[in-house]
């Protein structure tokens, strides 16, 4: 009944939700985010990209985490911000690579 075959049935990965997306951040004199610029995929499969910019109206909260030093250090400085128009996002600076990312709040 069962034919000899070594092929596994399925190998599936979990897909992360709310993965950080790269973003360019302009800082104010205090080192806090003042504006962000990010590239949006325009779709259509042509690789087209459109850049959007938004001014940070208010920094609502900020915090820092340093974690998983035993695996691969995660060191981030987070800012929960309100953009012009009222949308709220979370920005963080990766303190290892000094790159900025954005996530949904």
């Amino acid at each position, binding site marked *: *009944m*069962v*034919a*000899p*075959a*070594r092929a*596994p*049935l*399925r*190998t*599936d*990965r*979990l*897909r*992360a*939700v*709310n*993965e*950080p997306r790269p973003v360019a951040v302009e800082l104010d004199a205090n080192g806090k985010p003042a504006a962000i610029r990010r590239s949006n995929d325009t779709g259509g499969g042509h690789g087209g990209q459109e850049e959007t910019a938004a001014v940070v109206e208010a920094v609502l909260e900020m915090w820092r*985490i340093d*974690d998983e030093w*035993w*695996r691969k250090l*995660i060191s981030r400085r987070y800012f929960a911000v309100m953009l012009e128009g009222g949308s709220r996002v*979370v920005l963080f600076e990766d303190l290892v690579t000094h790159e900025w990312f954005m*996530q*949904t709040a």
Partner: protein
Amino acid sequence: MSRSSTSSLAACVWIPLFPLRCEEARQDGLANYPTALLAPDTTRKLWQVSSLARHAGVKPGMTVSQAIGLCPTLRLIEPDPVHYDDCFARLLAALNEISPVIESGELGLAYVGTDGLEGIFGSPGKIIEAIKRTLEGWNVRMSEAGSTVQHSNLPTFRIGFARGKFTAWVAASRSKPDEAVIVPAGAERKFLASQPIAVLPLDTDIHRRLRQLNIRTLGALAALPEAAVTAQFGDVGKRLWRLAAGRIAEPVEGRVTLEPIVAALTFFTPVGERELLVHSLEQLIARALNHPRRIGWRVHAVRLRADLESGQMDSDVGRGAACCAPTNRSWLVNALLKDPTADAGSIAAPLKTRLEQSPPTGAVERLVLEFTAFAPGTAELQLFARDAAAAARAGQQRALRHAAREVRMRVNRATLYHVIEVQPWSRLPERRYALIDYEP
């Protein structure tokens, strides 16, 4: 899904301390140090120890702190049961080239049915030579798998040849490394008579009582009347007496098992949360049950294995040891279901219990489920179980499946997912939830 054949003549192949030998075979130089393998279910205790460690007073079952107190240079190795299982499977496959009748015992112990092999190889001595050549070939493959392992570090084997598995096992236990003891036909009782009672499958209580009765050899036990031993030790005693007297010659029972049904899941980040592991296990069971090869058969044996994140051992385990050997780590559980079943809950139950009682000792990178043995399904069970509610559920499920298939065909990829909690308490937002394929 399996058929069996038997052989009264048996060659027992035994590699003592098989897991430890596997580690020595893949880590060059490890055999030169006192080493100990940690127990798979708890990293606080030792499972197997090398002879150098034994000389320092270290014994299996000791706690790590006791062992390090006795032997500060002890090298501790975290267990990798999946690797040992693979090595053993390769050993069985190699022996299968000699004889179609192979029965496996514990790790490192296998019986080769040799009935009829004299027509191919000749005398028992020639059969043993053929088995040795096969084992040497397996050893070479082991050394090729290991990086820079010297041949001297490869596992040594012992072989016993006799009528019946027990006598063959006793002969193997008496042989020297890489050598064989052949018990000629008709000489079994004489051979067994001089052997110590420790070769019997005894529990510690019976062993103690036999020693108190000054019964130290199988001959001394067999000299007693069978009825007296049965009266003293019950059915167990009766079996022991028969083994000692050479009255039992259990044949080797070979099984032709077909390839398992495998379902696997690789996590994007190592997972230590029990809830997620249980959830993933349920997903894997559902997938494996849906496999076309499974339809019409019930699952009889199941294996769950996990590749664990490699890393340092915890501070308590490592404290005081001169070196903690870096190894791959894994976790393995085999479950034989009392009643073969196709019910996901019944298949999951023993695995969940094991996850609860002795969980993996590290974060899991990959989880693999295998259905390894099957029994024919019964249509009658489904007939009687089909009540109105079950029929309604089946209808809903069918409709859902149809809709999901249609969506998948339209967009040409899987687009339906479950959102599951991964680490809802995590300070990293992307770690809190994940998507997993949804297949109704």
